[in-house]
């Protein structure tokens, strides 16, 4: 990923309300400005407790239940992935994997 890709991805988030809300939550809780395709766990700003907090945040904010089989690292690695998970759980999109 290049810096401009990240910029484009972040601009794209403006049209994706789920991603936009997640970016805001992350910025609020970690004081780090992430891009939608950035690996959240690579930078080290995510504590061991915060991973679970993210799960609960998705469930509460978007009215979904994340079942055991969906608690994979890949579903939470990026804002994009979490937004896709939310849409899938809301029944908007079939699971592409």
């Amino acid at each position, binding site marked *: 990923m290049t810096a401009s890709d990240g910029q484009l991805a972040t601009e794209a988030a403006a049209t994706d309300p789920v991603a936009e809300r997640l970016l805001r939550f992350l910025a609020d809780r970690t004081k780090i400005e992430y891009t939608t395709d950035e690996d959240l766990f690579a930078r080290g700003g995510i504590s061991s407790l915060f*991973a679970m907090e993210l799960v609960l945040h998705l469930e509460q904010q978007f009215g979904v239940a994340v079942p055991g089989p969906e608690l*994979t*690292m890949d579903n939470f690695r990026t804002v994009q992935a979490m937004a896709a998970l939310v849409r899938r759980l809301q029944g908007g999109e079939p699971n592409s994997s």
Partner: protein
Amino acid sequence: MTESLWQATRLVTEAVGAHADSWDRRGRLPDAVVRDLSRRGLLAAQIPAEYGGLGLSSRDNGEFTAHVGSLCSSLRSLMTSQGMAAWTLQRLAGAGQQAAFLPKLAGGKLAGVAFSEPSAGSDLSAIRTEIRTDGDAVVVQGEKVWVTGAAYADLLVVFGSYREGAGVVIVPTATPGVRIHRVADPLGCRAAGHADVRLDEVRLPADHLLSASGAPLAMLVTAALTYGRISVAWGCVGMLRACLAASIRHTSVRVQFGKPLAEHQLVARHLGELAAAAQVATLICEHASRCWDEARSDLVTAAVLAKHVAARNATQGAAAAVQLLASAGARDSHPVARAYRDAKLMEIIEGSTEICQLLLAEHALAGSR
């Protein structure tokens, strides 16, 4: 108080009666008592009704847990394990696994949760227990220590490494290759059935591996421990209430230097601090349970905070109670003497005081960068 909470409280009060001291001395809870409480859904009272459970809220189960903790910390400790096993299934299992195992935990079976190992206590990333799939089976190899309730358990919820992350597997204790050795002389919660567990090439049907397996260890462990921490915290509230009640009873009637102990200022200070410790622990547990019942994302930190504050208050409060009752509370299994020993264990399990401090510091730092 809801009807089911009232019923639960009455049932467990009858079951414990005046036996907690002798259960502590013997280091055993009667099998019939714990089986009966499990069968009534009282050991994991938040299991939803659709699985045969009582479906209590975290707040109601918290008050119930505090009540049990005020009577017998060994039994409360067993409740923490059973409830944590149930919650692990609710959070990390697939629908079929939940349907298969949750009714057992509300229907007479007993469960323990196995995290710690000889070389992995606070640092669970060092766990060596290995979970691997082999054809249509899952195989577990490893060694667990200090598993609460394992001496009574029919099922163990075992955490281990799995593929690139961690796994959780349900191990019936009757499976070949499972060996359980009771910890002979625990400092506290002496009747809670702490045991070391050897798992020697234990082969199980693949559906015993919980669906979330493969996720990062921290995520899986945090999910399970969040329940455990709130449960331990409410148990500490119960210990504090019992210590306060015993201290008030004793200092109100015991006369020294011509007046009741409670009228001596140095004694009154202890009583005031003990009442404050109990009230603070209650409020912080109520907050954590509110986060749980409202499914708030700050639950995870609230649970660490509740456990940390309540456990430390309980060790300090129990020490004060022993001081106040002096020789009257200095017999080994007297309620305040039990609380003195039991509370210290609460500063060790489900994340030691120091681990809680690190987690809270990490949280504070993340919020202020």
